[in-house]
């Protein structure tokens, strides 16, 4: 019989690889009897889903460049463009 600690590891690995038949069976046996691990499993699946959603997110305001940073960047780029124009005439 697996302990909750072992089940927590396998439930996590199930997000990254397919468990072996033996592992799946022992996890299922444990989950039948353990409410906490059932919750844990469900919550990890939620985390994975959230992670995927997070990568597509575009509305978090804290994640935008400040005006100052934009200006800095623009200046650098203009310099680089000028340099490039000088080194490659006719481009």
């Amino acid at each position: 019989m697996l302990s909750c600690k072992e089940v927590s590891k396998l439930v996590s690995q199930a997000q990254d690889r397919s468990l072996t038949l033996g592992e799946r069976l022992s996890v299922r046996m444990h989950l039948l009897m353990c409410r906490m691990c059932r919750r844990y499993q469900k919550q990890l699946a939620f985390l994975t889903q959230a992670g995927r959603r997070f990568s597509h997110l575009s509305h978090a305001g804290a994640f935008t460049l400040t005006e100052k940073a934009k200006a800095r960047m623009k200046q650098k780029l203009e310099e680089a463009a000028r340099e490039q124009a000088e080194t490659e005439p006719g481009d």
Partner: protein
Amino acid sequence: MYRYALMRVRNPAVAEDMVQETFLSALKARERFAGKSAEKTWLIGILKHKIIDHFRKSGREHPVDDINKEADHQDAFFDEQGHWNTEIAAWNRPGEALEKKQFWEIFSACISDLPAHLADLYILREINGMQSDEVCKVLNISTTNNMWVMLSRARMKIRRCLEARWFNAT
């Protein structure tokens, strides 16, 4: 692009540099831009390489898989028989959380609160969706097994953080 970088490298200054370098590289390589993809896709593609280089470099400097470092911490979630030593509470309407902006701020803060090596790993694997073997290479993790152990720890910590700061707090 900045958001894309920041969500992955977690450091505003580094993210800003990366976006800038991406534009510079793009400027140099602009004749190679065939117009086959949208400009934005092309730029993000360059940015992705910059981000991977960044992790690769820090992976070389600080090899990530000192997995015993937090063994004690992990054990703190279980008693000697391997049972949970704190209640794993049910979460109230997790689906609704995904629609709330504040939830994402907390989610992002919980990732940032991880020890740096776990955060890098979690981001590459769970947010970027990078393949396991590639993650190990980039972060200098010696075995996939070590990666699983660390991912399990990262998830456990994020779970606990979300519970404390979102699910129990609302």
